[in-house]
């Protein structure tokens, strides 16, 4: 038996097929999501100042720390580097009022990953959107700080308003009616101010345009599709048209952030497009119902959390259609 010159320092690697794959990984997706949120986050800092920056950093630190502790406690390989915990922290921060104490933001971030994700078994196994679990926790624990921590845009931007602490346009709409809300966003900015972010609001929701820009990046890279966000908008528009101010509802509050970034979370949304339409509509309708007839000026957070609970059922009902026989040959 003749020996073949197989002299080679390293053996050849034998792995199962396919031997090619896309370059996209879970981690690359998460970091792209983070990167696409950066403009909105930075704009929040520009508009609201260093307090907003502290909230963002604290929330992300809390989320990453909890992820690290959680995976270490479960004796699993650390998943901090995959960017999903950082993403949770960043998303949470963008839903918070800029004047929230940093320690509360840290606590919220830690709660978000620990109780929103880690206790379910980590990435991929959680039922609810972790960032929104964190927000719900903060709303329940620090209701005053969460609803009064709104800051005016810093004085060199946008319209001057009277108080240091003012209601958001949606809160004004809720408490004082359409006219008050209209007054709040009228003046030099108007609806443009609403879109650009020269108005009171949470850190990331103020600039609908920059949220849209980030969403555009994710759409262009195929990370998300329009199915869920459009369904959310459709549902919201349907319900809020009863209020006479659907445009204010569509541009105000955290609807864009929620529709493009929270509702599209892979783990907590249906896998099939058909299920996603129902999921998005449900979120939109619930958002409108909560805003018009519920106790909160905002609605998207709880709407998504409720819809998250329906996802396992949607995944059962909406499954791919099997390619089956069409009958005998023609």
């Amino acid at each position: 038996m003749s020996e073949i010159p197989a002299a080679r320092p390293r053996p050849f690697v034998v792995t199962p097929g396919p031997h090619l794959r896309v370059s996209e990984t879970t981690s690359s997706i998460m970091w792209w999501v983070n990167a696409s949120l950066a403009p909105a986050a930075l704009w929040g800092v520009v508009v609201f100042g260093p307090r907003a920056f502290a909230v963002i950093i604290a929330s992300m630190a809390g989320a990453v720390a909890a992820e690290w502790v959680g995976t270490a406690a479960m004796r699993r390989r650390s998943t901090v580097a995959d960017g999903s915990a950082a993403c949770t922290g960043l998303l949470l921060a963008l839903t918070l009022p800029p004047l929230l104490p940093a320690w509360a933001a840290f606590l919220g971030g830690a709660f978000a990953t620990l109780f929103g994700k880690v206790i379910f078994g980590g990435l991929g196994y959680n039922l609810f959107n972790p960032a929104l679990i964190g927000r719900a926790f903060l709303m329940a624990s620090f209701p005053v700080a969460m609803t009064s921590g709104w800051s005016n845009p810093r004085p060199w931007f946008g319209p001057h308003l009277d108080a240091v602490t003012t209601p958001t346009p949606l809160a004004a709409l809720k408490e004082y009616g359409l006219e008050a809300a209209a007054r709040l966003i009228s003046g030099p900015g108007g609806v443009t101010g609403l879109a650009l972010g020269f108005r009171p609001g949470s850190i990331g929701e103020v600039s609908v345009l920059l949220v849209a820009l980030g969403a555009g990046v994710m759409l262009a890279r195929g990370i998300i599709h329009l199915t869920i966000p459009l369904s959310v908008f459709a549902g919201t528009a349907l319900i809020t048209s009863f209020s006479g101010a659907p445009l204010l509802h569509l541009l105000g509050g955290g609807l864009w952030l929620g529709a493009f970034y929270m509702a599209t979370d892979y783990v907590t949304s249906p896998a099939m497009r058909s299920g996603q339409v129902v999921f998005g509509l449900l979120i939109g309708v619930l958002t409108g119902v909560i805003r018009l007839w519920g106790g909160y000026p905002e609605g998207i957070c709880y709407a998504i959390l409720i819809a998250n609970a329906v996802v396992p059922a949607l995944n059962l009902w909406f499954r791919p259609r099997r390619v089956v026989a069409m009958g005998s040959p023609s």
Partner: protein
Amino acid sequence: MHVEHLKTFGRGGIHPDPHKRATAGLPIEDVPPPMEVRLPLQQHLGDPAVPIVKKGDLVRRGQKIAEGEGTGVPLHASISGKVKPIDRHPHPTLVMAPAIVIARVDDPDLAPLEFPVDPGWRELPREEMLERIREAGVVGLGGAAFPTYRKLQLPPDVRVDTLVVNGAECEPYLTSDYRLMLAEPDAIVEGAVLMARIIGVKRVLFGVESDKRDAARVLAGVIRRLAPDGYEMRVDVVETRYPQGAERQLVAALTGRTIPPRALPYAVGVVVQNVATASAVYDAVCRRRPLLDRVVTVTGPGIAEPRNLRVPLGMLLSELVARCGGITDDATRIIAGGPMMGRALPRLDLPVTKGMNGLVLLTGRGPFEDGYGPCIQCGRCLEVCPLGLEPDQVSVRVEAGKLAETAPYGAEECYECGSCTFVCPSQRPLVQFMQVAKSALRRARDTRSVA
């Protein structure tokens, strides 16, 4: 603007980077006889061939050296030389398996056998054509290596109306079928007509992907010249989309018919044969020439000079890569076949077998070397599965050890095209999860039917 709607299959599929440029422009080169060939007795699906030569025998290229018994096919000497002791040798799929080794002898008495054209070849009865195909050791050259005579012998109650000739070559990197269509279109078309006569159909559809339009044009030209009266023969350019060359997908694209789960194409009246097989059938019927060589695309970033080569069967991969300038220092993986459905080989001292249509040398780390993550339910696998199966659901149940619960998600129907695994961002080995579930479900069913 005119938008062309190419024929294709219904759902799913992927568009991997084709990587065909390195070899698409290179004509097929003949490889001179190597110093040694190792011919495994098992190079096809079915019973292994039974040796009819022994140690020390002198054989001529083309001579039969092993008989096809049972469901198998015979084997022939691909070079002239002296038979070495018949022993077990490394095998590309069976790890170790018996093989006939022939050491080359250059001797005028051992000139290759001649296979002159048989003048009456067009008028042969069906049984004689089938026998010549079997006797020539022809198997499916697209990769499956199923004995061709068996695929052409349909069960008595089956009626077919169409022969589909597969020139899709949807695997990235591979160009062996493409170059063969350009080099031997006459043999391919003649072989297709012969097979159509054997299965009793007059409708022959060729499927060629849109990145090989010149090959489609060449075949269409030959068809105009050679198509017998009363035959409907045409070339359909199909969308370049993986896995367009899979039987189910090609039949769907060309005929609009869907092969039922776990059934063969004849269930919808179709027989599918690869273009290289058609050419081998022509050689077998018209001049009784056995299958001695096959075209192999040797390519990938790990090879110095990519080539399309006509290789004597049994030639060692180490010699094959040496003919292509050798492997590069950073080559890490050897893939027999295409990179989507091909198989990683651990070593190069393995022979070229009948089903090996490509040898792709890859660099860098493989998809699963860094482990894999949990399913994040992104739904990509659901979108690309050409059968509408649910690899995500199967995979999480296999991970949880709930094999019996995988049945509703289609594990048994999976033919392992790998599209799901290609797109999975968590780098999960979804094809392997499907395999595990499939074999468990089959075992369970077999046990039930025995009980």
